[in-house]
């Protein structure tokens, strides 16, 4: 520590030597790209904090000053979205847990347990991934409304539950639909992870006398924790941000059970024009739950990606 430190002295000569046209070009390009990606974000945040008047007068990138600054947009957006937040989370969390759990079980059954006709089932799952949502909208709506009106069947029960109203039962068909359509992709993600696990683990458990379900519960499930992180984040983001199924099964933004993605297009829009400040505030608020999930699962996420499954 007390040594003279010639190597920490900045060697000006070599610095000058390092500077050449290619290097400068590289940095300029990097800075341009950073600007390209960050400018919209910065604009969004600034707009969210400006009054309508300030939005019209100042350039979008500039921060709000003096009179132009307000928390009002965020407050208003939060009021508009608060019910929808509850609906969205009430729908997205069970749907995510359901599809991830069933996906992992299906992947276990398809990779680590041997039985006849496995390939055919795997192909069915693959087909499920490539099925376009638009193709099933009409049958789906008819199924939940006419053939099996689960929502209206559950409505009386929901009314008696704490914190819930009868209209929340309309979210149940949406949850089940999301679970069903989420299983294929979750299965494929888990399958690639399970294939990378050493088969001797399952074999050792078999010899130790564990049944197929015990092997899943005691060995496979705990080992796939990192992969759960990855798939959970992915699936939550998908379901939370999904619009088409919600729009079909819940019908409109004016209903009390509407989820965030249904409300969002309507917030800040009126006959007198669009209030950009409110719209931006609402957009940022809507993104918060997914951000929280990312932060909460960041460690598992990184581990899961590292172990090579995803």
């Amino acid at each position, binding site marked *: 520590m007390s040594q003279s430190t010639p190597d920490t002295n900045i060697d000006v000569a070599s610095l000058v030597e390092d500077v050449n046209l290619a290097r400068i070009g590289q940095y300029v390009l990097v800075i341009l790209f950073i600007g390209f990606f960050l400018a919209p974000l910065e604009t969004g945040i600034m707009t969210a904090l400006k009054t309508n008047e300030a939005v019209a007068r100042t350039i979008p990138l500039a921060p709000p000053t003096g009179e132009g600054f307000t928390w009002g947009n965020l407050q208003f957006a939060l009021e508009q979205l608060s019910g929808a937040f509850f609906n969205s989370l009430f729908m997205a969390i069970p749907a995510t847990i359901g599809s991830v759990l069933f996906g992992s079980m299906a992947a276990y059954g398809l990779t680590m347990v041997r039985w006849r006709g496995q390939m055919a089932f795997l192909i069915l799952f693959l087909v499920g991934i490539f099925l376009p949502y638009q193709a099933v909208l009409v049958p789906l709506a008819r199924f939940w409304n006419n053939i099996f009106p689960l929502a209206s069947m559950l409505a009386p029960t929901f009314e008696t539950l704490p914190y819930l109203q009868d209209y929340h039962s309309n979210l149940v068909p949406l949850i089940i639909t999301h679970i069903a359509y989420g299983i294929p992709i979750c299965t494929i993600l888990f399958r690639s992870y399970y294939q990378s696990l*050493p088969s*001797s683990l399952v*074999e*050792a*458990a*078999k*010899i*130790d*006398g564990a049944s197929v379900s015990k092997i899943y519960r005691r060995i496979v499930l705990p080992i796939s924790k990192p992969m759960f992180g990855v798939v959970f984040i992915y699936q939550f983001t998908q379901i939370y941000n999904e619009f088409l199924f919600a729009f079909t099964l819940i019908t409109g933004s004016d209903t009390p059970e509407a989820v965030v993605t249904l409300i969002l297009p309507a917030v800040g829009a009126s006959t007198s024009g669009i209030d950009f400040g409110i719209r931006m505030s609402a957009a940022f608020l809507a993104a918060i739950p997914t951000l929280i999930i990312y932060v909460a699962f960041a460690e598992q996420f990184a581990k899961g990606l590292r172990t090579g499954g995803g």
Partner: protein
Amino acid sequence: MGAINIENLTKRFGETTAVDDLSLDIADSEFLVLVGPSGCGKSTTLRCLAGLETPTAGDIYIAGDHMNYRVPQNRDIAMVFQDYALYPHMTVRANMRFGLEEEEGYTKAEREARVEEIAETLGISELLDRKPDELSGGQQQRVALGRAIVRDPEVFLMDEPLSNLDAKLRAEMRTELQQLQHRFDVTTVYVTHNQTEAMTMSDRVAVMNDGRLQQVGPPLELYHAPENRFVAGFIGEPMMNFVEGRNEGDRFVGTYVEYPFDATIRDAVDGADDVVLGVRPEDVAVDTADGVDESDLGDYEFVMHVSVIEPHGDQNVVHLNHPGDTSESDLLHALTGGTDIFEQGSEVVVTIDPSHVHVFDGESGDALHNRRIGPEAEVTNV
């Protein structure tokens, strides 16, 4: 008890036949080593025994009971895997207890006591509350053994359990495994590709190649009386020398050497056309050629040329070539004492005692004649 009978076991994977009509009886509390090169079907045989693979044909009996349709947990076996297959999220204690949870007749306290008792025997008591990734390779190996022993099975199946350890630890564990096997007196089937492990640990060795059983017997029988060229070449390090040539009635004629047959060998090889002469490196005697005239050489002596010397300290491996041979491959390898130093490139006189010579059929590879030990001694009594 834990005797194993394998009758006409065949296992195919699609078009490939991994195990071909294998029959093998393993006595109770015997230590049998299945050995062979990679892909010879030894692991598949073991996995059929364990119930991890279903045989295509044939029957497996353990302790007299037919096993083909039994799931692994009902076979009363325990298996040690090459990668140990310890459950990474459980402590050593939980790893060892896992198999006991399905066994009937244990209370919770008895299970704990059993785990502690076995851990004590293996010297891993202080590791019980650690996770597998906090253990060294040797410790993981011990835990894997403990997990097998704790269930008190009729049969131990071991799939190359020592191959992930470094050489020194492997030698230690070899001895320890043997001691454990004697102590618990459990029938053990041990798969390895390492012929040192096969020779040193086993009661009997079964050599496999291409899915077929080549020979079963005590290690020294395989060493001194191999039934075919494959077994002769596989057992022994450095490998047995093979010289290909023709049988001309009273002598062997190869490209560079002629070797006279004595009466015993002549009778044994009678009728064979192409033959292969086999001699172990330690049976090739090497001496300096200083002052020796070609014409003085006996029938079993040859002048050769030292191409490479590999010193091992206690012994040297001498690579020998015929002076007329310009090809890269060596004709013979010889083992000499550590202090017998020969110069690379020098001429030497090589003596091969006719009583040490094996002769194999050139086409089928079957042994026609094996080396003699003592005047009339039976090889199996060595």
